[in-house]
Each structure stands twice: as structure tokens, then as C-alpha cells.
């Protein structure tokens, strides 16, 4: 495993200049994600229109992996229909825990820069937290945690 490859330019760039960082004036859905093990906290707000994510923003203090993951997540899901978003959430989670065959067809695109995270079990949660929080927001859970068990995203991530 080469951790350096994980800290690639693209991730470092998103960490330095996070996209869609801030709040939304009007949000139809909103959730706060929390990783109690490292104290990280992430706010995800979005506007759903006609089952499409019309707008999305995030905010919070976190490590580079988490911030870049959140930033790239927002660019990836913005404008997408809900069903596509659910697929991305699922695929990202599977990639993070090393269960996605990257050779087979998938929809992650540039999000595969996070594939190296599977070799760092303690950091998997950092990469997943934004997706986990997005999932919670879409399911109208207003606060969540990487330790919350009833969430299907975490339920598996916790085993990583």
C-alpha cells in the first residue's frame, strides 16, 4: 500500500479549495455527520427538486481525506437524479471497504482516487462520512454518526 498515492494532487487540491463549501439559503434536506473517534463534524445541506439534487453544500472541520471526499461528492451528485445518487453512495461505500471490483463497470469516475483508502481501515470512515451524511440527509435523519449502527452505510463500514 502506498499512502502517498492516496494523498494525490486531486485530493490535496479539493482539500485546499473545497467546492460547494458553505451553506444553502434554503435546504429541503439537511444532516450533520459526526465521527466521535476523531471529533470530525460535517454539515450537509441539499435541495431536492423533482427527485434531482438541485443544489448541495457542505461545511465543517475535518481531515483532508474527509474534506476532499465531501468536496468531490458534492460535485459528483449535483444535478443527479436520486436513483443515481443512491447508486453512487452504494458504490463509493463498496470501494472504500475494498468490495468493489474497479475493473468492472461502475459510475465512480474520478472518485476512484479514494480507492486506496481500503488499505487504511481507520481512515475508511473519514472518506465515507460525507456520503454517510448525505444518505442520512436524504433519509431525513438530521444527525448521524459514523458509529450509528442502524444506518446501512455504517453498518458495513463499521466492519472495515
Amino acid at each position, binding site marked *: 500500500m502506498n499512502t502517498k498515492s492516496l494523498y494525490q494532487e486531486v485530493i490535496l487540491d479539493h482539500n485546499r479549495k473545497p467546492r460547494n463549501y458553505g451553506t444553502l439559503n434554503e435546504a429541503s434536506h439537511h444532516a450533520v455527520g459526526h465521527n466521535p473517534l476523531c471529533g470530525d463534524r460535517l454539515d450537509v445541506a441539499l435541495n431536492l427538486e423533482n427527485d434531482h439534487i438541485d443544489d448541495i453544500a457542505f461545511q465543517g472541520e475535518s481531515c483532508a481525506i474527509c474534506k476532499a471526499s465531501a468536496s468531490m461528492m458534492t460535485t459528483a451528485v449535483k444535478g443527479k437524479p436520486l436513483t443515481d445518487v443512491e447508486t453512487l453512495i452504494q458504490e463509493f461505500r463498496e470501494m472504500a471497504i475494498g468490495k468493489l471490483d474497479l475493473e468492472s463497470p461502475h459510475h465512480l469516475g474520478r472518485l476512484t482516487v479514494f480507492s486506496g483508502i481500503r488499505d487504511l481501515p*481507520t481512515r475508511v470512515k473519514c472518506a465515507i462520512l460525507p456520503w454517510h451524511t448525505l444518505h442520512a440527509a436524504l433519509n431525513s435523519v438530521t444527525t448521524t454518526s459514523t458509529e450509528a449502527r442502524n444506518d446501512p452505510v455504517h453498518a458495513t463500514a463499521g466492519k472495515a
Partner: protein
Amino acid sequence: MKIIDTSIQPRKIQTNSMEKFRADFPILKLKINDKPLIYLDSAASSQMPQVVIDRLVHYQTAQHANINRAVYYLSEIATSEYEGARHKLQKFINAREDREVIFTSGTTDSINLVMHGYGRKFIKAGDEIILTTLEHHSNIVPWQMLAEETGAKIRIVPINDKGELLIDAYEKLFNKRTKFVGLIHVSNALGTINPIKQMIAFAHLHHVPVLIDGAQAAPHIKVDVQDLDCDFYAFSAHKLCGPTGVGMLYGKAAQLEAMQPFKGGGDMIASVTFEKTTYNVIPHKFEAGTPPIAAAIGFGAAIDYLSTIGMDKIHLYELDLLNYATELINDIPGVHIVGNAINKTAVLSFVVDGIHPHDIGTLLNQEGIAVRTGHHCAQPVMQRFNIPATSRASFAFYNNKLEVDALIAGIRKVQKVFL
């Protein structure tokens, strides 16, 4: 006392396929007083196979760090090995999920966890707790402490002369004040295997949760907590070829979630301020502080070892030893087996006319034979049979018939001394 550690080749008296496992236990090659060690005290603590010893050494030389939260390699590997051990236990007892398995420091710790976590939260003055005459002190004293604190009452299931629970009497004890049942699966003093599945089902008819003390069952018979439908199940690693200092508590997730924590400290919390502390999810809520990491991993290795042999095979082999030994002991005049239940594990408690168990223990030791003498932390059983103590030979799959023969010869020799 001289100890000569030479590899003695056990004579092959039987072609039983279990015989080969005996060689896995380095301590069984010891000599005591120039005689081969004959270890018949596995009910108190079992011995450890080389593969578990090696696992512990490997952990200390290549994997040790504190678990949880750290992002460096050793901590990650230690965490995943520790959680891996939990998973092995989950499989071993067929729990629904890993989080239903809590690492404790042993059976006693497990039972105290339930007393503090469940009992002190849900049991009140006037409530009744059902225990049995067969219980080990570890499943009596915590409930007495709780009864004293809360004003709850303890009701006792009696036994017959064979050492079997009186199921009718058990069922009659239930009433609307009954709030908890603590039940030993296999008696450490007598070997009785109790019909716990039926007893649990009856308690559940009255919506009463049941804790099973499985310290003497898990090492000898297959345990399936879903099939038993018990609410809690406890046992210790050191009776299953694992290390001292670790044990487990199985609890149904819903029960564990409803309980209050037992010990406060690191890792059992989600966040701490002096104003407000929130607890972590199970199993972590019950694992405060640095757990016995090495011992838990050793526990997992021991479970792997036993699973490779197969619990069913172990049970059958030990039953054969029990029957063989029972017959031979019954042949000795003046020797009486205490505990003659129809369903037994390979535990033989006995008394010898005119000879105190301590003298028997000391004189058998002279022959290299290790048996336990005393009340076996089960004084109510002793009181029931009106004896202060017994001598107890308990067998594991690494014992053989040659050793039974040696025990019989040893008892006869002790009798001669006192003629």
C-alpha cells in the same frame, strides 16, 4: 518438588483419533515427583496448546499496540485481530451479530456486568430472582449483593440426590414478581448438564430474561445461543484452552442496548464533557479502558483450535472417558461419586470413607495426579449433600484412559495408607 521437563512418549493404548491432540499441550510433558503429570483439573482451568502460546508470542513480537482510534499500522492490526477474535466467538456460539459479544475479564466479570448493567437498572424491592442450588458462587454472590442493595429476593431451585434440578419446583417458583433467572448450564461441582433450553422457554413464557453461566458448558458441548434463546450467556477463555484474564458475555442486542454501563472509562463513551457524557454503542459501551487485547486474541486462537477438532467430537470422546472412569470408581469399595445425573460432562466428584479430600489431594499429587479438593466454589451444593468438600477429577479431550487407570490406582493407594 522436582520437575523434569522431558518429552515422554505416551504409550498408545487406543487407536482413538483424539490421542494426537494430546501432543499439542507442552505442559502435559512435565514430570511431577518423577511421575508424568496427570492433569485432571480442567474444570478449574484447562491447559494451553502450543498453537495458542505461539499466537500470543506472535502478537507480542509483531502486532502489539493499543487498539481503537490510532491510524498507524500496529494499532490497526491489533484492532483488527481483536475484532477478529470477537467474530470467531460470534460464530462459535452462533450469535446473530458481533456486537452481541462483549469481552470481559472472565465469567465472574460477565455476570457482574449483568448484575450492574441490567439488575441495578431493572430489579427493584420485592422483585424475585431465581437461582439454583447448583450455582457457582459467581452466580450467587452478585445477586445477593443486588438483593441486599435493592431489597429484591432470591428464590432457589432445589436438586435431587443425583444432583439434578427439580424442574417442577423451578416452574412453581414463578410468579408476577419474578424478574430474572440465573442458571448454570453445567455444574462445575457435579457435572450435571441442566435442561436449560426448556427452562429458558418457560421463563420466557413469563417474560423473564435468563442469564446462563456457561463456564463449564462451552468447553465441552456445542453452544448455540440462538437455539437456546437465552438472554445472556457467559464463559471464560481459561477453561477453553485460552488464557486467563479474558472471558465473554453474550447478550441479545436489545437487552444490551437497554442496559446501563458497568464500568466508566475510555472507549465506552461517545463524547465526554464535565457537563454531559454520552455512551458509545454496544459492544463498546461495556468495554471501558484498554481491554485484555492479547488474551482476547489468544481466546480467538483457542476457539479456532477447538473448532478444528470439533465440539461434538470432543463431547463424545469425553463422555467415553466419563463412563469408563465412573465404572472403575464405582468398583472401589468405600468410594462414592457425588453427582450421578443422567446428563453429565466428564466431572467426577467423589468422597472416600474415612479420608479427608485434602489428604487425598496431597497423596494423589505424590503420584503426579492433579485433582481439585474442596468446595469448588459451590458451597450450597456441598451443604445439600451435607459434606464440607469433595475430591474432583475433571477430564478434557487431552486426557486418556491410561490416566483414568492411574487415578484409580492412585485412589486405591491412598486408601492403603489409611488402612
